[in-house]
């Protein structure tokens, strides 16, 4: 388009289009980012959670523990309770099996029963062995484990926790 052919009308049209496009992009692109922002955030906070003193845990008997994590979602703080059992399989300090007591069926909390020698879920009669395997009931998989743990110098067991 040479300058002679560009009429006043066309100039206004083109200018309006360009300026409008710039304004649209300046407002529109940040707006898209603003909308999808929560999906781009990695929420996973991590921590070492003290569970209890090793000397308090009897060998062969699951030791119950629980802890609370505060999650911040936007402007809202939610406290979530977590619980589990630490089992010393032998006298060796590192021979530990730490289970999450959240039932793998529908997330009720399982309890260790001395008489049944199993973890029982009150909701749908699920039954897990001391090693967390499914013995009976609807759960699709064994109890989740806290695989990473460590012992502090003064004998406190800590588990590694990462927010989902």
């Amino acid at each position, binding site marked *: 388009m040479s300058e002679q052919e560009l009429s006043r009308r066309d100039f206004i049209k083109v200018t309006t289009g360009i300026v409008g496009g710039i304004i649209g992009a300046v*407002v529109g692109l940040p*707006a898209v980012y*603003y909308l999808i922002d929560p999906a781009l955030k990695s929420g996973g906070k991590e921590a070492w959670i003290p569970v209890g003193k090793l000397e308090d845990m009897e060998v062969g008997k699951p030791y119950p523990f629980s802890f609370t994590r505060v999650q911040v979602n*936007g402007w809202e703080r939610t406290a979530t309770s977590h619980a589990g059992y630490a089992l010393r399989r032998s006298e060796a300090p590192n021979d530990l099996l730490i289970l999450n007591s959240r039932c793998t069926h529908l997330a009720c909390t399982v309890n260790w029963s001395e008489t049944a020698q199993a973890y029982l879920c009150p909701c749908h009669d699920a039954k897990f062995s001391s090693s967390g395997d499914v013995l009976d009931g609807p759960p699709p998989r064994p109890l989740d484990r806290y695989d990473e743990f460590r012992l502090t110098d003064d004998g406190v067991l800590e588990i590694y926790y990462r927010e989902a």
Partner: protein
Amino acid sequence: MAMILKKLYNWLDERLGLKGIYDNILDRPEPRGNWWNTLGSASLFLFILQGATGIFLSVYYTPSPDHAYDSIQYIMDGVAFGWLVRGIHHWGATLMVVIVFIHMLRVFVTASFKYPRELTWLIGVGLLLATLGMGFTGYLLPWNQRAYWATTVGTQIAGTVPLIGEFILKALRGGTDLSALTLQRFFAAHIWMLPAVLAGLIGIHLYLIIRHGESHLPTKED
């Protein structure tokens, strides 16, 4: 490619009458204009901008006394470009009141409200009032000290109307005190009722402008 687009355009034009819309709205004859004649379009643009940014703000804002303030803090600090979206809405609101008011002054000064445009003027008065209503209701939503006391004073002023003042005050506040009900109804008015009123009135306003065309500036003989 150009052929396909041309065909697609013709197909749509035949059914939608695109050319007619374009000719009547964007290509209509205008008197020799000046920049003062663009204030109505500027108001319309600001209305759309406020609507768009407002919709985006409602994604994160929550109109409850417990969370309203926190949710705005979150928009400002926690969300990408939240400061920009809220900033545009905040300053756009002020600018819209100013532009709408100057638009009204221009129409008054150039006597453009006379026959046959009296209804355009009257509807414009309604638009001005609805715009001020948007400003008044939106001011409470951040639920900070300034918002709270501005609304306390504002509703108190409305309450000084003789005889029915107390009723107006209670109707505005949703009770005798400024409360969660006040915040909720101001929010409803701000995002549903007043925008609906504005959109409807803008529709009529634009129809009348297209029907009558823009007014000429008065000459010495007028």
